[in-house]
């Protein structure tokens, strides 16, 4: 492939690629994101390859391995174009039928289609599935059309058009103005206006400047960035080149977690291809602009996602934050002005440059524009990645897209913003997705984790979970964070163990105040959020733990016990077989099982395997369990 020497070359190549791909060829796209790979989608791909060759359809069918489709709960996902038929939960053994029915004869295989939860109707087309119908997939749409390992796919789908446009018709300040006018805000959590950040770095008095992609997505329960970087690395790269052009940087870094090996591989490959095509390197598209990118892997430290910590890590030091009297936008990597944005923010840039700020501003609320990707996870029917316009309510996301809470349980809260965010109770579900609205509710947008919690989730345990996470991830550089979190964890441990004292909640709030004021970096400053928001909205649960020694959700192990209802027990023995401690035995001369309370660790494995028609294992207060013996 010859180098592309002018912006016009990009468009010509796109024309050629599109012309070559036209015709009546069907295209089978198999999701190869990490979620689907975990369901062995690579076996499905191999089976398709075999079957298509076997049935002599190789001439008429194109097979493509794409990035994540988002509906991870139901993977592996296969989409057949041009009809847009979407098969869910494909297994290797289903492939033969799909090839002979759909590919050879154009008939759909009904049993693999999506089944509507309420009406039971089968839905063939992807766009009609409720999970997709309510979304607005600006960034994620390309994941379905592009093989992440092929730059040609990206270019054919309209990629690098924004770069060609910018380098041919726009000055750097024009690009900057477009981004500023679009009111794009950082998608990594804080929601800082991207244009203003870029301007600061651009205006900083230094010739050497850097741009950095933050792909150190450490929030537990969030994987949007992973999905974009794995599924469409060129979109991030194009955004980065545009940013570098606007800011005047000639060197960029991608800092990506090594827990995401596929993202690392795909990014490295994308860089190589872009260099080969002349989209990176010296004199990009004949414009005289030079820029190149390095990949740097992180190694499992949550705090390294903080801007100054991340830059320290790139410099080869320990990824610890420093006091930011001077912003990293002015003095960052090697003390040079450095512009850091997360993956999703960079991926938005090409869309803004192509579509224009006015188009982008047409979506969203007054102060939050465009779309936001959430990873909708936890106790929700349709788990996966969803992209919605800003301003959509949480209720729409959880119920219309997510299909509500499984097993008919009631929704208790949703958690956003990861360890820096907070919980939003069911009563506030009509809150719109908007940076400011979420902050007011005591949570934050965060990078986009949206964890649904049902009645069986204990809010004190949730707070303890986040504090435990943060205490573990605190780098220990500043005392308030290191000791404050440790103390909070101690108090929460006590409460969840049923040893809470009167005044514990007030003590927690006091430590929260301290951390907010005194911690060095955002990790410590926002660490109180999970505790504060659970106290604010679920004070009654704290009181139940402390005053009544009771866990209303039945989660905290010291406050519950399991017993077997001898009437309901079918004596199938599934619980005994799955008990890790061997605490369950068959009652002598009786047709039911019993739990030895001394051996039971209250892990809950037995509840999980007890047949639904029996539901014989019940949670009770510990004293009640002793009495029944």
């Amino acid at each position, binding site marked *: 492939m010859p180098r592309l020497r002018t912006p016009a070359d990009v468009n010509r190549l796109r024309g050629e690629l599109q012309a070559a791909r036209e015709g009546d060829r069907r295209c089978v796209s198999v999701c190869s994101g990490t979620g689907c790979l975990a369901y062995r989608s690579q076996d499905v791909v191999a089976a398709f390859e075999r079957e298509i060759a076997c049935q002599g359809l190789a001439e008429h069918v194109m097979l493509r391995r794409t990035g994540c489709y988002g509906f991870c709960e139901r993977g592996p996902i296969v989409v057949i174009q041009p009809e847009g038929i979407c098969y869910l939960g494909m297994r290797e053994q289903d492939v033969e039928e799909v090839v002979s029915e759909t590919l050879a004869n154009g008939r759909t295989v009904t049993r693999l289609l999506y089944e509507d939860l309420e009406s039971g109707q089968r839905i063939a087309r992807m766009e009609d599935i409720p999970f997709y119908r309510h979304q607005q997939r600006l960034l994620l749409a390309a994941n379905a059309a592009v093989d992440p390992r092929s730059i040609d796919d990206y270019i054919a789908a309209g990629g690098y058009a924004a770069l060609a446009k910018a380098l041919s018709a726009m000055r750097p300040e024009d690009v900057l103005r477009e981004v500023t006018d679009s009111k794009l805000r950082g998608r990594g959590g804080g929601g800082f206006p991207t244009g203003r950040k870029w301007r600061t770095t651009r205006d900083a008095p230094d010739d050497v400047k850097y741009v950095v992609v933050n792909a150190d997505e450490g929030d537990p329960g969030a994987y949007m960035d992973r999905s974009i970087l794995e599924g469409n690395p060129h979109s991030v790269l194009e955004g980065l080149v545009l940013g570098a052009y606007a800011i005047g940087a000639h060197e960029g870094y991608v800092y990506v977690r090594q827990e995401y090996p596929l993202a690392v591989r795909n990014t490295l490959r994308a860089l190589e291809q872009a260099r080969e095509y002349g989209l990176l390197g010296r004199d990009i598209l004949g414009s005289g602009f030079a820029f190149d990118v390095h990949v740097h892997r992180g190694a499992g430290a949550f705090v390294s996602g903080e801007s100054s910590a991340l830059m320290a890590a790139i410099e080869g030091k320990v990824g*610890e934050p420093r006091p930011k009297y001077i912003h990293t936008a002015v003095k960052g990597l090697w003390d040079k002005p450095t512009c850091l944005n997360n993956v999703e923010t960079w991926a938005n840039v090409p869309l803004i440059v192509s579509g224009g700020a006015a188009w982008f501003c047409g979506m969203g609320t007054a102060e939050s524009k465009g779309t936001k990707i959430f990873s909708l*996870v936890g*106790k929700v029917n349709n788990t996966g990645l969803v992209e919605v316009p800003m301003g959509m309510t949480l209720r729409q996301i959880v119920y219309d897209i997510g299909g509500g809470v499984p097993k008919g349980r009631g929704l208790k809260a949703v958690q956003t913003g990861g360890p820096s965010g907070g919980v939003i109770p069911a009563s506030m579900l009509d809150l719109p997705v908007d940076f400011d609205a979420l902050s007011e509710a005591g949570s934050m947008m965060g990078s986009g984790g949206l964890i649904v919690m049902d009645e069986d989730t204990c809010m004190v345990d949730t707070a303890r979970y986040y504090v435990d996470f943060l205490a573990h991830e605190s780098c220990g550089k500043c005392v308030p964070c290191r000791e404050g979190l440790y103390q909070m964890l101690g108090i929460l441990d006590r409460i969840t163990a049923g040893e809470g004292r009167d005044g514990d909640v007030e003590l927690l709030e006091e430590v929260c105040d301290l951390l907010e004021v005194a911690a060095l970096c955002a990790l410590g400053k926002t660490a109180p959020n999970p505790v504060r928001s659970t106290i604010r909205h679920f004070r009654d649960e704290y009181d139940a733990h402390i005053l009544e020694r009771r866990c209303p959700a039945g989660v905290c192990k010291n406050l519950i016990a399991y017993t077997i209802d001898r009437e309901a027990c079918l004596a199938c023995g599934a619980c005994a077989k799955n008990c890790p401690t061997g605490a369950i035995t068959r009652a002598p001369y009786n047709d039911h099982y019993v739990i030895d309370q001394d051996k039971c660790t209250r892990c809950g494995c037995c509840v999980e395997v007890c047949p639904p028609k029996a539901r014989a294992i019940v949670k009770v207060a510990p004293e009640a369990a002793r009495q029944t013996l």
Partner: protein
Amino acid sequence: MVLTDAARDAWAAAGEPPADVVVIDDERAMCDGCRQVLEAEGLRALTAPDGSRGLALVERARPHVVIVDLKMPGMSGTDVVARLSELDPSIVSIVITGYASVDSAVESMKIGALDFLTKPFEPEQLIQSVRRGMELSEARARVREAPPAAPPAEEGLADASQVALRGLEVLGQYYRLGLRRRDFVDELGRLEAEARFHAETLGRIKEKEQVLVEVIEDLRVADEVIASHAYRKSHLLQVLLDVQARLNWLPRHVLKWISRRLKVPLASVYTVGSFYEALNLEPRGQHLVELCTGTACHVRGAPRLQAMVSSLLGIEPGQTDLQQLFTLKTVHCMGCCALAPVVKIDDRYYSNPTKTQLEGIVESCKQEREPSCQG
């Protein structure tokens, strides 16, 4: 007194008593002194006042050891030594020199002398030197007489048996000479102990050699990785990750090596190495079991899964079992929340497995190990 068969034959042929040692020196006092010392030791010594007469005596007496003064009128000591090795390679020569000149000593060693003594020397030095010479000479004579020896044995024990055989041969000669049985037994015991000692030492050396080979291999890997990162200090973390990917963990010698090669203080290497969760400063089991503790997994029962996996493997998170088969780790979110709760074993993800499924997986991991052990 030690006599080889060859020497006895020579004695019989020449009709003159054989000597163990011949001393060639122009100083009469030196010759007599040496002879007295050696005879007191039970060795038969003859003397000659110059090189040519000395050589003639050697030809007749066929001694084991010849002591030669370097500085003599007429034929010089070095010439005598050179001639001696032509005459009979089994003869061992020791030179005496008046001046402790390193050059002359080196010169004499080069032409084949075993040792050199600087005048004046203690009787004890002379005796020691001559004893060593006797042993060497006998060994040389045996090599010449014996059919071509078996190829040098590879293993320590084979070496030991060679030592023992040699010992027996020597003892056989003692025995023929009518030595007491007790001496024989004592000597045999001593030799056996010596052989065992040598075998053990050899074994230990081989073990150490093996460890050293492994260490060198580790360092070679580290070097390759460091070179691929162009020796950049800022790539320390990347180097550690890449080295770990190949070695499975980061041993101390590798960290030291990286510190030296990148010119980064060892303390900094350890700071980085211990800061990041993903780096292992302790050996890891053959199979890595990672439990996701992300929020999505937590609310969907990660603690329950953890209890099950822990009890099945018999280890808690962060531990490795005694067979070094499994290492159990917890990870903050692997980004496959739709599969929650999830456990990753090596490169495969398992979504909410039952106890029976887990048992099957663990069993197959164990099975996998067996053939590789035997093969």
